[in-house]
């Protein structure tokens, strides 16, 4: 068992467990924290896949994003201090059946798909390659993304503003 294998299994276990916890915990605040764990674990998976840059971006953006969610979750409880923010699930069985069905379906699909068996060489500097791709082949999408972000920012501001 190589280090990578061990790390993968460990990360996978953490990721799955925390994901399940996100979905099943009754306390919304805990849910968010578990999501943070899941995100960090995902970042770890990125590291295993030699995508260190993505790991950084993942943590940087999600850390802020997740905490923001917490803040809003708390704002919406209208109580600064108190019991955990309760949240319940509905039709859990139905959802589980459908989810498992989708999972099994994907498994079957993957099982027959011709996937590359081994890693192909990725080049020396992935980060540099990413940067060059972003600013050459995908520059239009990159710019559009900037527009999208600005639009989303303005839209969120507009939506969330209080009427005076």
């Amino acid at each position: 068992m190589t280090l990578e294998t061990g790390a993968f299994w460990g990360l996978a276990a953490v990721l799955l467990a925390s994901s399940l916890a996100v979905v099943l915990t009754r306390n919304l605040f805990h849910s968010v924290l578990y999501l943070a764990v899941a995100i960090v674990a995902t970042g770890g998976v990125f590291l295993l896949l030699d995508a260190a840059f993505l790991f950084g971006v993942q943590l940087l953006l999600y850390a802020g994003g997740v905490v923001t969610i917490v803040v809003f979750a708390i704002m919406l409880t209208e109580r600064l201090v108190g019991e955990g923010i309760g949240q319940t699930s509905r039709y859990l069985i139905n959802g589980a059946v459908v989810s498992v069905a989708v999972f099994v379906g994907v498994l079957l699909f993957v099982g027959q798909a011709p996937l590359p068996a081994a890693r192909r060489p990725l080049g020396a500097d992935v980060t540099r390659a990413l940067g060059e791709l972003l600013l050459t082949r995908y520059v239009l999408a990159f710019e559009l993304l900037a527009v999208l972000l600005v639009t989303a920012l303005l839209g969120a501001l507009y939506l969330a503003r209080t009427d005076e």
Partner: protein
Amino acid sequence: MTRLALVALTLPFLAFLLLALVPPLRRRGRAAGLVSIAAVGGALAAALALWRVPVGAPAVGVWEWIPADAGPLVTVGLYVDPISQAMLVLVTLVALLVQVYSLAYLDEERAPALGRYYAYQSLFAFSMLGLVLAPNFVQLFVFWELVGLCSYLLIGFWYDRPAAARAAVKAFWTTRLGDVGLIIGIVLLWRATGTFDFATLFELAGGGRLPAGLALTMFLIYLGAAGKSAQFPLHVWLPDAMEGPTPVSALIHAATMVTAGVFLVTRAFQLFAAAPAVLALIAWVGAFTALLAATMACVENDIKRVLAYSTVSQLGYMMAAAGAGAPDAGFLHLLTHGVFKALLFLAAGAVVHAVGTNDIRQMGRLFRALPQTGIVFLVGTLALAGVWPLSGFFSKEAVLAGVWAAHLRVPFLMLALTAFLTAVYMFRVVLVAFFGRVEAGGHPHDAPPPMAVPLWVLAVLTLAIGARLALRGGETAHPPGWLTSLSVGLAAAGILLALLMYQVRVVSPAAVSRALAPLDFAARRRYGIDALYGALYRGLLLGFSWLIGWIDRYLVDGVLNVLSALTLRAGDRLRRIQSGQAQDYVYGVAFGLLALLIVSRLWR
């Protein structure tokens, strides 16, 4: 030459445009009338000038109209031959006199209404002239319909009177019934010969190169003529059309429009000659119409309706002549009749104007109050009765001669009987209205000059034409010697009978009625033809409407109701899918993903 005809044609049209497009002018009423009169006067002058030009072959001026690959499909133009020359003069003359007459007759109309009247009059003159001058069937049909439209407008001039409005619609629809036949006939003729042009068609007919089997086609064309000229059984509209102003009746329903049918038959006689069966039918129907209308005229008390039936009767004469192969005689009668019947109508109008009623039973001793009107009416009556040497005598004799020459014995007898009856009913009117014992109400007086002058002009013309015909002799037909005496005798007998019945009172009209009770009964009810049409109309149309209504209500609506109910119900069921909760839709997305996976798996 065509330029003169063009002037005659366009002057009334310009007047119409002027009146139609310049509202201030139209609202002035009398001024509008003067414009119209000036235009039609100019047209008369042009027509007279044209009349003096001797015509060898028909002069034709054409312009292209409907283009087609191989030359124009249809042309418009002018077709000038003796027939159209004579018709031009007749139309413009009567139109001019009628318009002048109308100035006084419709004096009490409001100015805008008068302007409208003259606009219609101008349009009518234009239409009629265009009809007369048409060089082909298409142009003829267009103007034919325009004439029908003007007739509708003028009959319904007093559109606020329900009777007038109904009469206008009735006239319109009845003549349209014939026109359907006419246009089908025209198209069939075109398919058979490939042309609409009269000139070409006559050339074909003259060379005997007309295709065989034209009987149906010509019958259909005759249907149009029968509708316009009020031939049995399409005659019902004409008496009702008397709801319009009297000058209109004089113009349209005596001298011009109703003769369009005769004109058509005359114009296309060469084509009709190719279908002898149709000709015979025309003769028989014409004679029967003449007799039928005469009997109805005998029992009618409305002075204008008597004249209307008389017109139907005389149109029957003309048609019979045409059908008997003597179109010249028929056309001659058309011309003479146009003049003296216009005279009679206008005189009757003067009487009505003076007395305020149409019913001859409420008139009497009018000759003393209206001597001038009485004289001209008498002139017209004598001409219509066929008394020598007035114009009617000669044309009628020519018709009888033509029918006799064609060996149509029964029609001849019917026409002879009609001649007798004509004298009877016309003198009945004269005797009752002008010499009757009943005192007319009010203070009747002679017509004002604008009305009187046209009357005198027409009366003089009636006499003059008669004199001219008497001097020149019958050049159109060579009647057997006994025919003259027969005509005179019939007229005299009729007059005598009328005198005995209504003046001397030796013979009681009531007794005559009783003796001819069934005939009298039927004639007073117009032989049930109007009622029959009404019943047919009601039965067919209402029955059909009821059927349509039933189908619509129960079949169409039923199907739709069922469909809509199903849609509603299905929509109500489907609606529940839309729970409004986004998560339920995510289920749909998930199922879609599953379906995609499964399909992709099965596809391999």
